[in-house]
């Protein structure tokens, strides 16, 4: 019985989408009832898989129409759920369940809500299918359904400024990414004549031929586009900023994770290339750049949701870096952070949505302020999320980020490679910058002076507050009980990502992997390392002193008068004990102003890169893909 649950979960979601389109386009109560029941039933089906897969450590294989392998060749389409896929499926269904509840309050009064819920459920179904399938082409189909429904939902409120533009950019870039994935799949089929991931894993174990190497590079680049790592990140910031808030939550919490899951599935299980040093270096390099660019762009934003969108990019960078380290500890931190990111970023987007909903669509940080007096519950929830994303104990962000630092540092100590120390320090600095930018939002939106226009703002309705409180409670609970969660929930997923032999044997029959000569990857399995915070502190202080000396020694305009626009003189004077301006509000773009002034050249380059032209973005995608392909052909043959 239990082996039917994965396929029933996916089918149930699509069936619900179908039913809503038929019965729910007129009546709101029917629509909400259908979507709530479907999400609850599917969540029940997915959670029922926890016992056999995560606790007992099994793998469920299911052949569509009972087309089982003949003579060692997979003919039919197979679903295969291991702990790795199940953890991501649980992340997805939890986020969707909460987001669906929030949609009831947030989307009330919009037009064509029947289509909204249809697309929403198709998005959920496709991600569940993506996480549970064992067939490469089926994975591609699910990615495509995911892209379409995400694009349509991004531009759902077409009147909103920029919604169509963001949808178009998202569609064009994701179609390029899908094209790369499909080319990769075609090349793999050309070489192996099968599409089953388990069988491919056993066939590709004997090293890569040039064809499969090209396929590998294209697949990694394609899933990179889906996970929006830098330099593929540009449409994400636009899309998350203009999408309805419940959609922003699932786009950032789940859709980007699906890309990361695709990469992990591809690199760890299908090609089993993660034990190669070059592979680790390129993935961690992309991850580190992603975290830094994401957070530094976030510091310069004026729009509430766009700022959060850039933080999503930065946090996905953490996950990619951790997964790219190729150690069990790193992957644990990465998957744990994927779960935590869904919780706290979902919470932050919902809080942003509450502000947006109650103030009538204002997201500009310069126009908000002092809302804590009017929206106390939203403020509390936001502060929980902000503390979690900045990595403050005892919230969940602290636990997973600590695991990631520890993994990166252990890797540096093991390999003696200076490169991993840079990664560790980048991860730390990015965390500090995250905190800085959340201080900025908290000041600009919730504290400070209440502006005239927002005098009559009310607290959000209960249907929107309940999902926020659920997420806030989960952020705190997963932070306090991090040890059982990491050991009993995340670690089985890590084991299944490393245990390729079992994955193959369950799907293709006992002994298949041994016959094909497949062995498990040599991934270091050290969970408790000789971790000494003192060494780390000394390192950090040394780096700080070095940086300080470098800055002091360099020629700078320290002490020079900064030109202040006379129009804005009053605004800045409360930094210089000006008395008349004590009660004026410090706007979002005035915070961290000195930092932005000092890094002007960097921001000028970044502004040039984020030009808003879809052609430029496509160029970035093609160039980055070319770099990945060339790197692999140079260093991995």
């Amino acid at each position, binding site marked *: 019985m239990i082996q039917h649950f994965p396929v029933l979960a996916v089918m149930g979601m699509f069936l619900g989408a179908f039913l809503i389109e038929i019965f729910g386009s007129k009546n709101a109560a029917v629509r909400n009832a259908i979507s709530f029941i479907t999400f609850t039933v599917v969540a029940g089906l997915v959670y029922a898989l926890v016992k056999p897969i995560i606790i007992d450590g099994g793998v469920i294989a299911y052949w569509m129409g009972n087309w089982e392998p003949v003579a060692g060749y997979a003919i039919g389409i197979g679903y295969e759920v291991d702990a790795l896929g199940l953890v991501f499926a649980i992340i997805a269904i939890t986020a969707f369940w909460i987001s669906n509840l929030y949609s009831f309050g947030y989307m009330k009064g919009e037009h064509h809500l029947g289509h909204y819920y249809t697309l929403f459920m198709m998005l959920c179904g496709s991600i569940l299918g993506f996480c549970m399938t064992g067939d490469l*082409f089926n994975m591609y*189909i699910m990615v*495509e359904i995911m892209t*379409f429904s995400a*694009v*349509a939902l991004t*531009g759902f409120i*077409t009147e909103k*400024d*920029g919604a*169509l*533009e*963001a*949808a*178009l*950019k998202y*569609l*064009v870039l994701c*179609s*390029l990414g*899908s*094209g790369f994935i*499909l*080319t990769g799949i*075609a*090349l793999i*089929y*050309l070489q192996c*004549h099968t*599409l089953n991931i388990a069988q491919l894993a056993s066939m590709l174990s004997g090293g890569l031929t040039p064809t499969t190497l090209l396929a590998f590079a294209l697949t990694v680049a394609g899933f990179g586009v889906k996970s929006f790592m830098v330099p593929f990140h540009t449409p994400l*910031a*636009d899309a998350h*900023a*203009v999408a309805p808030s419940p959609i922003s939550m699932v786009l950032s919490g789940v859709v980007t994770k699906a890309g990361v899951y695709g990469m992990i599935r591809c690199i760890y299980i299908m090609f089993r290339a993660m034990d190669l040093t070059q592979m680790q270096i390129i993935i961690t390099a992309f991850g580190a750049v992603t975290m830094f660019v994401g957070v530094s762009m976030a510091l*310069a*934003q004026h729009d509430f949701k766009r700022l959060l969108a850039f933080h999503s990019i930065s946090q996905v960078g953490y996950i990619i870096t951790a997964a790219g380290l190729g150690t069990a500890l790193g992957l644990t931190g990465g998957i744990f952070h994927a779960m935590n990111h869904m919780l706290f970023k979902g919470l932050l987007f919902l809080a942003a949505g509450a502000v947006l909903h109650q103030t009538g669509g204002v997201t500009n940080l310069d126009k908000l302020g002092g809302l804590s007096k009017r929206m106390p519950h939203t403020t509390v929830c936001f502060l929980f999320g902000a503390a979690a994303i900045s990595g403050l104990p005892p919230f969940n962000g602290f636990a997973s980020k600590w695991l990631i630092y520890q993994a990166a540092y252990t890797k540096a100590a093991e390999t003696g490679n200076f490169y991993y120390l840079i990664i560790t320090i980048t991860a730390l600095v990015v965390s500090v910058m995250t905190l800085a930018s959340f201080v900025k939002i908290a000041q600009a939106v919730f504290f400070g002076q209440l502006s005239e226009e927002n005098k009559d703002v009310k607290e959000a309705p209960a249907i929107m507050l309940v999902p926020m409180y659920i997420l806030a409670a989960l952020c705190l609970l997963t932070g306090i009980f991090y040890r059982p969660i990491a050991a009993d929930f995340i670690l089985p997923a890590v084991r299944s990502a490393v245990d390729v032999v079992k994955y193959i044997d369950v799907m293709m029959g006992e002994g298949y992997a041994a016959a094909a000569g497949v062995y498990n990857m040599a991934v270091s399995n050290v969970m408790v390392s000789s971790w000494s915070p003192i060494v780390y502190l000394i390192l950090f202080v040394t780096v700080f002193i070095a940086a300080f000396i470098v800055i002091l020694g360099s020629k700078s305009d320290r002490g020079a008068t900064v030109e202040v626009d006379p129009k804005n003189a009053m605004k800045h004077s409360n930094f210089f004990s000006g008395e008349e301006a004590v009660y004026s509000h410090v706007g979002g773009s005035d915070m961290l102003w000195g930092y932005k002034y000092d890094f002007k050249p960097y921001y000028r380059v970044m*502004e040039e890169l*984020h*030009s*808003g*032209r*879809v*052609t430029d973005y*496509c*160029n970035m995608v*093609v160039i980055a893909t070319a770099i990945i392909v060339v790197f692999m052909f140079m260093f991995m043959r």
Partner: protein
Amino acid sequence: MTIFNYIACILLIVLGLYAVCTQKNLLKTIIGLSIIDYGVNLLIVSTGFNDGGSVPIYQMSDLLNGVSAQFFVDPVPQALTLTSIVIGACVNAMSLAIVVMIKKKYGSINVDDVRRLRG
């Protein structure tokens, strides 16, 4: 003769990428995307092709008796191509619909004008 197929599909993909990366008109960007799609479709269908192969329809007894020793054309890539064509049509329809609405809203389909979200 499959080598020409591969050359043609690489040419198509590169042409499509060229169009996507250089053309300023959004319609041409979308045409570029569909050219990439056609290239990939050609690649997939070529992977299953056998020159002089037969139709892959057999009786079970034929297979058991080893009657059909000759090659047959692999049917799986054809199924994949059909699926991929359908998806390509969806991409076209959806992106063209968005472009029509952008034209109504922005009054232009030049990428230099459609860039309100940036920075």
